[in-house]
């Protein structure tokens, strides 16, 4: 018994019961129905503030379970040309964190059940102020943060984790094909809400996922954690999503494809609705 409690404490699940109840509930409900989560992604402020909000709303109406709202950064190290271009266009139109919190807040009002996850790079948060970021994100109804360039080695990782913990927001950890067993063990110990399994060696929106490798990685992670695992990078069509969903993962992320679809239909008057119908084709295959 003592051993069980010790491992539970080590895994932090024990004392982090309160962290992002909403995301917990999402995965619990899906598990009961034997379904997988669809996690969508869009760039805040692209093509403009209002439209990007409308897109988020329509996505949440289309059956997406969690939405990743990207905080643009021009030198986005893990992003390919599709997301990078959207980032820069959004930056040129004057996006900033206050505006992003406004979008998140309105999305939260629109849908109380959607998991809202901010995603981006440390510098935006560092410059804004870590405590202030956590507070504002909480007020806006954000559930989680994915920060790409925030490994456990750097001082700000603990600062951000602690600041977010105070307000019940989870810091999501990424595991990639280069992450060895030891690191997986360490990373999963610190993880909260869910694990983001990066499917391939590379940046967003370029390579196509190799289903077998992606699934093997999920099994590798499962050995060390009971947290839900979502599988992302390289999922280019509903068929890919369907194949990935057959694995032990708990959710599938569609990112660059949505941004690319937005870019391709940027002049369409019904852009948000079109994006919604497009994403529905992913939702359908996961049912």
């Amino acid at each position: 018994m003592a051993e069980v409690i010790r491992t539970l404490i080590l895994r932090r699940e024990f004392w982090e019961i309160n962290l992002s109840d909403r995301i917990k509930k999402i995965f619990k409900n899906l598990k009961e129905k034997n379904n997988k989560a669809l996690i969508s992604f869009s760039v805040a402020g692209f093509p403009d503030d209002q439209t990007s909000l409308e897109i988020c709303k329509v996505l949440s109406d289309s059956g997406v379970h969690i939405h990743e709202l990207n905080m643009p950064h021009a030198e986005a190290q893990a992003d390919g040309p599709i997301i990078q271009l959207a980032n820069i266009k959004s930056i040129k139109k004057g996006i900033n964190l206050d505006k992003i919190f406004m979008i998140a807040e309105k999305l939260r009002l629109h849908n109380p059940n959607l998991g809202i996850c901010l995603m981006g790079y440390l510098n935006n948060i560092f410059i804004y102020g870590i405590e202030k970021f956590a507070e504002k994100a909480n007020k806006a109804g954000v559930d989680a943060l994915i920060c790409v360039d925030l490994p456990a080695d750097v001082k700000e990782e603990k600062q951000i984790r602690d600041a977010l913990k105070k307000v019940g927001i989870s810091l999501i950890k990424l595991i990639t094909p280069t992450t060895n067993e030891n690191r997986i063990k360490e990373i999963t110990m610190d993880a909260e809400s869910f694990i983001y399994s990066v499917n391939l060696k590379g940046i967003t929106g370029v390579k196509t996922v190799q289903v077998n490798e992606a699934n093997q990685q999920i099994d590798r992670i499962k050995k060390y954690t009971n947290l839900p695992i979502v599988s992302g990078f390289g999922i280019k069509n509903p068929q890919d999503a369907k194949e990935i969903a057959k694995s032990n993962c708990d959710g599938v992320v569609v990112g660059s494809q949505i941004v690319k679809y937005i870019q391709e239909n940027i002049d369409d008057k019904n852009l948000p609705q079109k994006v919604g119908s497009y994403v529905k084709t992913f939702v359908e295959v996961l049912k």
Partner: protein
Amino acid sequence: MTKNSLKNGPDEFGYYGEFGSRYAPEILMPNLIELEEAFNDAINDKKFLDEFNYYLKEWIGRPNPLYYAEQLTKKVGGAKIYFKSDHLNHLGAHKGNNALFQILLAKRMGKKKVLCETGAGAHLIATAAACAFKDLPCIGYMGRDDIFLQSTNVLKAKLFGAKVIECVDGTGEKGVLKDACTSVLKAWSSDPDAFYCCGSAIGPHPFPRIVQYAQSVIGKEIKEQILEKEGRLPDAICACIGGGSNLIGAIHEFLDDKEVKLYGVEPEHSAALTNGTVGIMQGFKSFMLQSETGDSTLATQSLASGINFYSAGPEHAYLKKIKRVNYTHVSDKEAFDAFQLVCKTEGILIAFEPAFAVGYGIKLAKEMGKDKLLVLNICGRGDKDIDTAERILGDKLE
């Protein structure tokens, strides 16, 4: 290791004070740790160091002279000016010291492919050449604007067998050193088995430390040579700074010699250490010329591509913070005048980059008085810049 020495390098997480570390995506973290371990192992291996020193001597041509620039000294009328002559290295710049070291390390690690970024192309040709003689394929990432400005270096790199990939920012409007840095980090993420040979004292830990280690040969030679010629340490050392490799190489050996004043000179319109704010991009924390929200870099400009950079290495950020090094800047015009002056007085065609060090060094020498010794780090030769010089001078060259 001496306690409290400024020469001890970063802490175990790669921090110099609050600066540096490795703000990298998880995909690169195992690579960075592997590299750090391989580096620490290599610098404790006498055979490896002997090999490095052998090629520094036989291939790069070190030690190069600490040259008394007598005519320039007379013309300026102040401190006695010495040139540390890395422009005489094989490959024409200090970049070869570092490229040689890292390519020997890559070979020792059993790597099969090398990636590098470049500004002026000096690091590209150095890496390409080292890869050629160590039989490794080399892929260089270079900004589109720099490819245009430094076409002879691109040609040389290709002759050495390198593949050169053109980089632009996200919109495709511009392409400079910063864009090459982002591109090569992405390429490395996509091909993590490759070796990334970083060209300056920037990037995620352990790169700033590795580059400093390899370039410190410059300062070690300066110390030996000045003691031999003058029987004492110099009063000041001055070098240009982009990412900061030639500067850290020239001064590292002197960091604990508090009587030696140290100067780093940036271009006026990319003076990150004077005008920047603390930020985190491209894997490290340092002073940066960045937007108010930290979501992008500011556009920079310089006559010298190699030092046209929005930031500077983390060790420099630390040395600025503790006020050990004076960071300053000069204008393109001052640098170009210095470039011409060195041509006319000394018959030496220096690169545009060290012309910034000379531009400031001239002012400094005047303030210093005739009994003082000033070392200027001439980190590269100017063959690569003559097309631009011609464009600027036009008819005046007649």
